[in-house]
């Protein structure tokens, strides 16, 4: 599955992987804001952003085609609107629409492909995203594939016994829900058994290092440079 590939990528050991997640998240947001506010006519800027992303991807030792393929998932949606924009006469804007959505996707992918989930959720938490939301994100991710796989197996078992139908699907969702709820009970028991007293103990953030600051400055300089000059 898609997110398992990203999971694998995120455990690499390049210099980019070792950067503090907060620096990477800040770099991502800067890039996205700069990209989003770029005028559609500045096509040279878009090309420069793409080059910036390609350089970053190769520094992270990530497959560029793999990343591009995943970022391209957004294209059917943006292509539709891009075409509409083209027909209404604004071809620059149409192109910009497609480019912005694609490059944004690539940039977000670079973050998650160089940072395990616990890393970027810790970064979010250090920026005061509510702890409960962070924990729910981690739990959803933890059980995502487990339950999806379970649903897949149930579907196959059901299809072996006849054609798919609306009622069958509803019944499947019902049983999946029941098993999920029971799974949650099991998890809660396991938590209690290991001394859980009602609060998850928070992690202690590590201070940013010099190489992180350097990385972030380089990204800021690159993005703003492209935006202003091109």
């Amino acid at each position, binding site marked *: 599955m898609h997110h398992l590939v990203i999971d694998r990528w995120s455990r690499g050991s390049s210099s980019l992987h070792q950067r503090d997640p907060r620096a990477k998240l800040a770099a991502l947001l800067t890039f996205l804001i700069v990209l989003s506010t770029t005028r559609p006519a500045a096509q040279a800027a878009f090309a420069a952003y793409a080059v910036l992303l390609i350089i970053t991807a190769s520094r992270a030792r990530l497959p560029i085609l793999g990343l591009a393929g995943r970022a391209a998932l957004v294209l059917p949606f943006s292509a539709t609107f891009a075409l509409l924009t083209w027909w209404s006469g604004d071809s620059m804007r149409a192109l910009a629409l497609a480019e912005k959505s694609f490059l944004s996707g690539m940039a977000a992918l670079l973050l998650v492909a160089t940072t395990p989930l*616990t890393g970027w959720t810790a970064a979010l938490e250090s920026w005061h995203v509510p702890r409960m939301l962070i924990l729910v994100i981690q739990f959803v991710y*933890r059980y995502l594939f487990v339950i999806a796989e379970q649903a897949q197996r149930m579907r196959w078992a059901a299809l072996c016994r006849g054609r798919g139908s609306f009622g069958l699907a509803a019944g499947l969702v019902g049983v999946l829900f029941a098993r999920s709820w029971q*799974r949650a009970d099991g998890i809660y*028991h396991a938590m209690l058994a290991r001394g859980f007293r009602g609060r998850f103990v928070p992690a202690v953030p590590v201070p940013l290092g010099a190489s992180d600051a350097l990385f972030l400055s380089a990204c800021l300089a690159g993005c703003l440079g492209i935006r202003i000059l091109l």
Partner: protein
Amino acid sequence: MSGHPHTAVSLSSLNQAIHVRGLRYQYPDGTQALNGIDFHLDAGESVALFGANGSGKTTFVLHLNGLLRGEGAIEICGLPLTDATLEQIRSKVGVVFQDSEEQLFMPTVLEDVAFGPLNLGLSPDDALTRARTVLKRVGMAHAVERAPYHLSAGEKKRVAIAGVLAMDPEILVLDEPTTFLDPPTRRDLLTLLRGLPQAKVVVTHDANLARALTTRAVFFDQGRIAGEGDVIEIVQRFHWEYS
């Protein structure tokens, strides 16, 4: 005889790890799951729990750390099980659940094993150090940053055991530890378990595991204990083998 948890005089002898008298438990729908269980476990001893599915074995072990609360007296290492002593008892009784997927709920192996020590009040640094030590003990030191999803069934079981060992328990409760494991993995797990000094309560259908790991066995039948004795003798008496 139903004892009162607050009895001043301890019902058990001093070196009994577990002492249970007259345990009764009813499910919310009214079924009597446990109908007067008397059970004891000495320090360092290993006991197997046999019985058909639904006979009450798992329900019984869930009482040992207070996840379920029934009527009757339970003492763990001389401590009566009450609301006030729950925390202490949960640090003495480590339960390895049947479903490792539900037991390893943190995003990474290291965080999961550190969960218990953190709850016990250790500092984050100490908790992580202890987690690493325990993971080395179970042979999973290489997997510290891995996500539990990516582990095999045997690896998950090892990490689950590590998570429990990290609490430094005196008693280990293992609920069907070898389900879904292939023979080589079962052998490795058995070697690991034999090397652990804690007293053990092992719920299992696996007579081989029981014979290799435990000396005594208790046979559950419909919420009651139908037999107790030497593990080989009990297996024979109740025909508890696969063939």
